[in-house]
């Protein structure tokens, strides 16, 4: 399907549709669509073999802006449509896009099951910690105390961390990046796409209208001291000066920040990132300000056969063993008699 070598090189423009982009000026979604287009150009799957499936929300408008096949479905159910599509045609490169409300509120169950089943799709969750399209109500990822039209005195429920959720339900590929990370985001896209099975990528996204600046402490240039970029096999070091690291506190079973060079701490004390370790991934997913940096990168990747490929393998085995299917024989299975 994907013989990039033979085809002429693709550009981001080849993935850009002719539709006016209708997000608010300054919305983080602009950066994301840019990053995804350029990643797709690099990946090189021909546009006709790429499908974007989305639910409803600002984020979910995404397919309209891609010149691939696209299906803007209903609120929260995109993973289910994507699963059906993969069962019909396993060859397609299927991407699922939605917001935090779409994928974790109404659609939480489908996100859960597409990850658990390990269907070979790439799930991009644009987390702006708010309902954008419906004008600013709080979402399941909004911080406690969020004042919104539906919580005028502040929300009282505890937010869910998308990456922890994904790990809990059994996802085998979990990554995190943010809208303006124009170098990092395409890399995450490529990793997600390369993973056979369900890939879950949380993308922190600024909603300039209803939740401006929520991620200022982790997802801007200035926030570098709060950004831990995790790379497989590399020590978990961060900070503008690369002078901080993550150490495992063996008593509390918790990750803690240490300063390299202080109290005799050297790189040897620093945890090395192991993408295949679910326990480590769980701890990384929970990191965040004020005490710790936020972790970006592939937090977890432990691939195994995808659901759709297993289904098709089972069917292929049956077909290999069966006679040429004869419809008259189908009806005549079991006992028949003649009059």
């Amino acid at each position, binding site marked *: 399907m994907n013989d990039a070598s033979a085809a002429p090189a693709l550009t981001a423009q080849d993935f850009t*549709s002719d*539709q006016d982009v209708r997000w608010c000026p300054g919305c983080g979604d602009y950066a994301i669509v840019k990053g995804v287009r350029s990643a797709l150009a690099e990946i090189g799957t*021909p*546009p*006709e*073999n790429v*499908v974007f*499936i989305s639910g*409803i929300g600002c984020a979910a408008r995404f*397919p*309209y802006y*891609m*010149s*691939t*096949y*696209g*299906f*803007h*479905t*209903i609120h929260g*159910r995109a*993973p*289910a*449509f*994507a*699963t*059906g*599509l*993969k*069962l*019909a*045609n396993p*060859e*397609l490169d299927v991407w699922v896009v939605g917001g935090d409300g779409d994928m974790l509120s109404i659609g939480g*169950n*489908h996100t*859960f*099951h597409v990850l658990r089943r390990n269907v070979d799709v790439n799930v991009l969750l644009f987390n702006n910690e708010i309902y954008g399209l419906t004008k600013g109500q709080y979402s399941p990822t909004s911080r406690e105390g969020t004042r919104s039209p539906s919580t005028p005195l502040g929300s009282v429920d505890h937010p869910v961390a998308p990456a922890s959720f994904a790990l809990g339900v059994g996802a085998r590929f979990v990554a995190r990046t943010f809208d303006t990370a124009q170098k990092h985001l395409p890399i995450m896209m490529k990793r997600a796409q390369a993973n056979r099975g369900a890939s879950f990528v949380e993308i922190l996204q600024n909603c300039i209208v209803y939740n401006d600046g929520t991620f200022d402490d982790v997802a801007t240039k200035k926030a570098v001291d709060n950004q831990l970029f995790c790379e497989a096999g590399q020590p978990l070091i961060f900070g503008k000066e690369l002078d901080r690291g993550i150490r495992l506190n063996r008593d509390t079973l918790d990750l803690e920040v240490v300063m390299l060079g202080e109290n005799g701490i050297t790189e040897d004390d620093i945890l090395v990132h192991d993408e295949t370790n679910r326990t480590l991934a769980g701890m990384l997913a929970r990191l965040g300000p004020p005490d710790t940096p936020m972790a970006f990168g592939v937090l977890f990747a432990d691939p195994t056969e995808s659901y759709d490929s297993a*289904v098709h393998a*089972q*069917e292929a085995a*049956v*077909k290999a063993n*069966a006679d040429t*299917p004869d*419809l*008259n024989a*189908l*009806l*005549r299975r*079991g*006992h*028949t*008699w*003649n*009059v």
Partner: protein
Amino acid sequence: MSGSAALDLKDVRREPLEAVVVRFAGDSGDGMQLTGGLFTEETAIAGNDLVTFPDFPAEIRAPVGTTYGVSAFQIHFGSRTVMTSGDSPDVVVCMNPAALKVNLDDLKKGGVVIADLGTFTPKNLEKAGFDTNPLEDDTLEPYRRIDIDITKLTLEAVKETGVSKRDAQRCKNMWTLGLVSWMYDRDIESTVRWLGTKFKKLPDIAAANIAALKAGHAFGETAEMPTSLPVFSINPAEFVPGEYRTATGTEALAWGMTVGTNLAGIKLVMASYPITPASSLLHVLAGLKEYNVTTFQAEDEIAAACAAIGASYGGALGVTSSSGPGVALKSEALGLAIATELPLILVNSQRAGPSTGMPTKTEQSDLFLALYGRNADSPIVILAPRSSADCFDVGVEAVRIATQFMTPVMILSDTYLVNAAEPWKLPDINDIEPFPVKFRDDPEGFHPFVRDSETGARPWVRPGTPGLEHRIGGLERAADSGNVSNDPINHQRMTDARINKVLGVADALPPQQIDEGAATGRVAVVGWGSTYGPINRAVTRVRDAGHEVSQIHLRNIWPLPKNLGELLAGFDQVLVPELNAGQLITLLRSEYLCDAKGLNKVVGQPFRIAEIEAAIHACLEN
């Protein structure tokens, strides 16, 4: 003591019958469904027409001996055409007191009760809620009773095979089957063979079951027989020559849709979530992988519907299936299929409601839901099979309509059709004209919502087709490009186009037939779906009594056949029997302003012929 020995005696004093209704009833653990199934097989081989109807308890395996744990299997068979599973049984076999308790009221006065004496212990009587032993008081006075200690006789019969007592007791149903087979002059050879195959790996169990079967048969044949045991002969029915099988509605529908997608040249992707009584469709299709059928058990009904739509978007035919509450859950997704004009089949196996209702009982009460159960003006095609054999044809037809008109189709089955079985003359698939799907692949002048001038269908494009990349969705789409449009005129145009496309399906349908009787007359009895059998019998009887009554049975609920209004106008009165509080009648009244009368029954059970007959007579007296 072989099957053929029995045959020698058969002419002696058998009472000839035209048709009979037998019900096997016992505890869930007594194997009544199996017994019924094997008796059906013997009866089919004997050449009778038949209809069967299993009645499962709501509980998986209720405590032994309770009334709510009773499982029953009814078979109606005869030498004439049999259209229903029978109003009330002529014979009830009761494997325990609870079975007697639950089934006695249904038995015809003067009918036969066969009761297993051995189970009428004080404990079992109490569990069944009997204060005194009905075999010892006048409870059974109005009936012909046959008390046999089946338990004891079975244990004796299988003693030689050396199986455990528990296994021995499990053979009671085969002993009973042997007896009933003798009563109706059935050949037990097919059952003997089946038992041999079934228990190939457990030869002693096979031997025990066969021994019990033969003992029951011999019990009738020999002098051990109580003098009151009635025996009958039923001549073979007249069948159109051909190859036959029995099939439940679910089996026939599964095969029909599979044949349909094969004739269309596409894959069938069935996504469903288990629910009684719809689950069996998923189970049957799960076994048809070699026929290009993929099944997917989704996390819920919504996901199932969405996955089916996703599959249709991918160029397969998405099929989804549920009952009652599960169908209600699919409403929103169905709206998207309507909006994006993708093919889809939704099989609704109706059951008694509202809400969870009575999940194992039959009802026809989702016609409103099918017609109207979505936000906004959301037309779909609705088909209703009339019998288990008709399910096959409806299955093929639904595939044809869905793929050629790019529209969702709902099939209204019900608990009765799901479970009922009847002989079915097998079609030759080569006689059915294939209807291959033509996917659009030419980019020249392509617009995803420009319609076929004849069918009104938009083009079907498989993602993966170069040059046709486009986006669709649930926001209103511009009439050509499919791009999001809030244009007022466009919305009117698209609303009209959706409505007219579905109405246009009627142009491609044959006109509505009169199923029984003349094209005009005093009363038209208009029904739909699984009530065909009892309505047909009732109309036939009233006609036989010399009245101008006709039957019009609808398979096409929406769009309605184009000639229907005209047909109805030919009758003084229109009677609409339905297993709901009045749904088709509402549609007919509003469409044709015809002052139809309803005959409505909401008890979780099919119509009795007599009820419909009475209603027709009431009309005639008007």
